[in-house]
């Protein structure tokens, strides 16, 4: 699971709603997998990213420091774009957990795949 994916995921435990985002990440095994750098892709993706969530996840994984917010003129700042490319696409969590911030429910990540299935009682009707 990449951090870009984590940025899209949200808990859907019953009653939690928007407070289910972002999921708290905890990783026991991480892999760095190089991905072709496409500056245009990263530049356009940045406005779509929920920055605080990304910051928190990158922190948990002890990654290179992500700035508090996108720096001025980031579209043309290659160093910044490369950093973000690395954080968003090249770091894969293979084993770990995602935790719903509201209910505490844990979702396991195994072999890079998060299991977000809930039991019937837990899901909304």
């Amino acid at each position, binding site marked *: 699971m990449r951090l870009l994916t984590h940025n*899209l995921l949200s808990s859907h435990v019953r009653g939690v709603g928007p407070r289910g985002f972002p999921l708290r990440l905890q990783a026991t095994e991480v892999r760095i997998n190089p991905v072709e750098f496409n500056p245009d892709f990263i530049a356009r993706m940045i406005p779509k990213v929920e920055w605080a969530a990304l910051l928190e996840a990158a922190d948990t994984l002890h990654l290179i420091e992500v700035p508090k917010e996108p720096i001025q003129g980031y579209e043309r700042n290659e160093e910044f774009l490369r950093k973000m490319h690395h954080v968003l696409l090249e770091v894969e969590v293979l084993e770990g957990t995602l935790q719903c911030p509201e209910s505490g429910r844990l979702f396991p990540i195994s072999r890079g795949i998060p299991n977000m299935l809930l039991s019937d009682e837990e899901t909304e009707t």
Partner: protein
Amino acid sequence: MSDVQEATNQLLDVNLCENQMSIQVTESGPRSESEHLQVTIGATVPTGFEQTAADEVREKLGSSCKISKDRGKIYFDISVDSLAQVHCLRSVDNLFVVVQEFKDYHFKETKEEVLKDFEDLAGKLPWSDPLKIWKINTSFKKKKTKRRKINPNSSKQKIDNGRGDTTVEKDVKEFTNSVSDSQILDSYENPAIKEEVSTLIGDDLTSCKDETEENSKEEADPEVLKFRVTCNRAGEKHCFSSNEAARDFGGAVQDYFKWKADMTNFDVEVLLNIHDNEIVVGIALTEESLHRRNITHFGPTTLRSTLAYGMLRLCAPQPTDIIVDPMCGTGAIPIEGATEWSNCYHIAGDNNPLAVNRAANNISSLLTKIQVKEGKLSLGLPIDTIQWDICNLPLRTGSVDIIVTDMPFGKRMGSKKRNWNLYPACLREMSRVCRPGTGRAVLLTQDKKCFAKALSGMGHLWRKVHTVWVNIGGLHAAVYLLKRTPQSFFHPSEQDGERCPW
């Protein structure tokens, strides 16, 4: 007679060396003539996606297409230099070079006369240029030398040529009714295919070894090519069967070229396509369908990659679009997406752990295959896999740009009764995660009635823009292109008008 002589000479010169991209085809005939050879290529595509395929041809080859009335086929002209690129088309299943096209063939009254005409036809066709193309094409294919055994399944399997009411027949010269596995396979798991493609990677690695074997075999018998004739016939008014046509036409071809007939181990496959009054004679350029290219681990309902490509193309992905398949099965659609639209981000999800594992395995296999082919450390693909429930997607509201999926038909997966509850729940959840205004969905289903009903209550969220009628393993299905309306999704618990903040 001189034509035959020339053709035979050309074939004797066949030099099947691996990297022969340049045109060193014949010793007779001027070199410059071959280089500027224009050729008409025919391609079979998933029925319903002819226009999409034509768009891809225009985009990648710059040629315009003629879409045949014979459904599932398109034709376009290219120069010989572009032949290699034709194999990179992702919306086509099979390719062939056109020998001759008869737009309005006059069939005589009796079967005997018609078949006699076919026999006479063999000697009158302009074979030499198409055969040159075939030869060049064979040199590209040298890597994939393992010849697959055709799987002799019973022909009760309905053929994917979606002709609706007209009768369809497909028969191969050689007195058996076996059907090539690329035809029957579509969405069925077939142990022969599984074995065949599970060595997709293995093939690339062992191709060097196989080449030497085949080369030495060919040296022993360089002159005699092996061939077969495949006849597709559709139309109400024909007084002959495809088997008869293939047999008699094939017999004449054999006499003309002195080739050897061989059903399974052929070098040349001659195609005789008859659709009402239109006849196209061609020579196949692909030996197995391209449609299973990305998938090594099959599930019970794996979608053809060409169909997956067509569906993705329909929704016109833009750079950085987030593209989700919430019922991905073996991952055919997101994997096709990640390879062809690598400037988008793809997510494959399913509730079934088997499916999710297969999807993940297919992604790994693909990465390995790319690595083997290009001989360098392969870079990751922009795709992730998640196990989830379509009715309760763990995704932020409005965060997805495109949803593309193959919905359970209720035949081999799920049931019609379940669909009555599943479809509305799916559409609702998909409308929540899909970005209002710009988002879109491309959904394939055979349960059109259930889908229409489910959609009817959601006009405020989804607008149906386009429908493509397709044929999936004999079932008449539809691909719906929906646009997400600009209206935000209101969570049912917030009925008092309070806006959902996220």
